[in-house]
């Protein structure tokens, strides 16, 4: 097998979706901390939340994606430091979240904009949502409920 470059591996990883929010790739989410290509390929991943059930699914998706490209020696490394925060989500990732109907995590103390109509006239319904990383919100202008990716 010809040697692969880091860039090539990053390109492949851009096609590996987050299992809970499939519009985001694991690169958009900011959990790929490093790729090294010495003989085999080593991908360093960091968990979002300690107990995030997606962690293991993501690891097996990365293995599967690289195996499909013919990589034989693949290692997944779990790194904890620096801990993931929502600031690791890329700008492209934030835009994809918004289009998907999930309000991206607030930066600084800005109000949460409705992902449907962009109104800032919104309210929190519940601090907890369908997954550990989301809260339930509602727009008071267009009245649509929406999910908000909590700032961590």
């Amino acid at each position, binding site marked *: 097998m010809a040697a692969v470059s880091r860039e090539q591996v990053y390109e492949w990883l851009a096609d590996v979706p987050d299992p809970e929010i499939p519009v985001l790739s694991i690169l958009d989410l900011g959990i790929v901390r490093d790729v090294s290509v010495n003989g085999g390929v080593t991908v360093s991943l960091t*968990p979002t*939340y*300690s*107990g*995030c*059930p997606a962690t293991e699914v993501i690891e097996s998706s990365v293995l599967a994606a690289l195996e499909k490209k013919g990589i034989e020696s693949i290692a997944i490394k779990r790194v*904890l*430091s*620096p*801990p993931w*925060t929502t600031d690791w989500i890329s700008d492209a990732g934030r835009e994809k979240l918004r289009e998907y109907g999930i309000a991206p995590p607030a930066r600084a103390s800005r109000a949460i904009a409705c992902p449907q109509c962009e109104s800032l006239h919104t309210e929190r319904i*519940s*601090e*907890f*949502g369908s997954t*550990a990383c989301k809260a339930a919100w509602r727009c008071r202008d267009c009245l649509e409920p929406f999910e908000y990716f909590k700032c*961590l």
Partner: protein
Amino acid sequence: MSRDEAVIAYVLRLADNALILAQRMIELVTAKPELEEELANANFALDFIGQARMLYSYAAELEGAGRSEDDFAFMRDGNEFRNLLLIEQPNGHFGDSIVRQYLFEAFYVHQLDALTRCKDQRIAEIAARAIKEVRYHLRHISHWLIRLGDGTDESHQRVQASLDELWRFTGEMFVSDEVDVAIRDNLAGPDLEAIAALWKRDVEDVIAEATLQLPEDQWMARGGKQGQHSEHFGFLIAEMQFLQRSYAGASW
């Protein structure tokens, strides 16, 4: 006790606290009084399970005896667990669980904060991950304590009784033994006296806002950190370990 043995013992205490509290919270899944609380409880329990897994994996690596995180959780007997007595107390009513959770997490947040600066890199990394979750829990749980205390006569009375009942389990958190001392001296770990002061300050603030009375100084139960548990604990682990004990190695 060698330096390594102290680190393993300490990591297992942290892991046992996280796992056993998670197990108590799991008992409440589908039994919470409203949907938001249902999600909060399950999400928080999941955070603790995640923390326990990271800690057990680290203990297993340090020990180097081929045990896995599951072996620690499911194949040890009750007297090998080192969680605090407070953690294993039964769920009781909603106010009891809130008070138990608050009293522990108000301690845990300061313990983790100190651990983020300790000299063991792995423990520091796990603590840095966990503290973000625990701060979120604390915000939620203290709101509940305030709402119940400063709520109706009935809720006030009942949550005051919960506080009075559970108070005797709080002393154990701050009693140093040789493991705590080794971690403090060798790894620049938490100083339990300093944490006791921070905990007391935070707890007094929240209890005052909740219009509750701080329980008086009293006899404090201890023993969890040495593996001497209360009667409730046997029932808890019997349920938790049943499957792996009966069908060892069973997997999904």
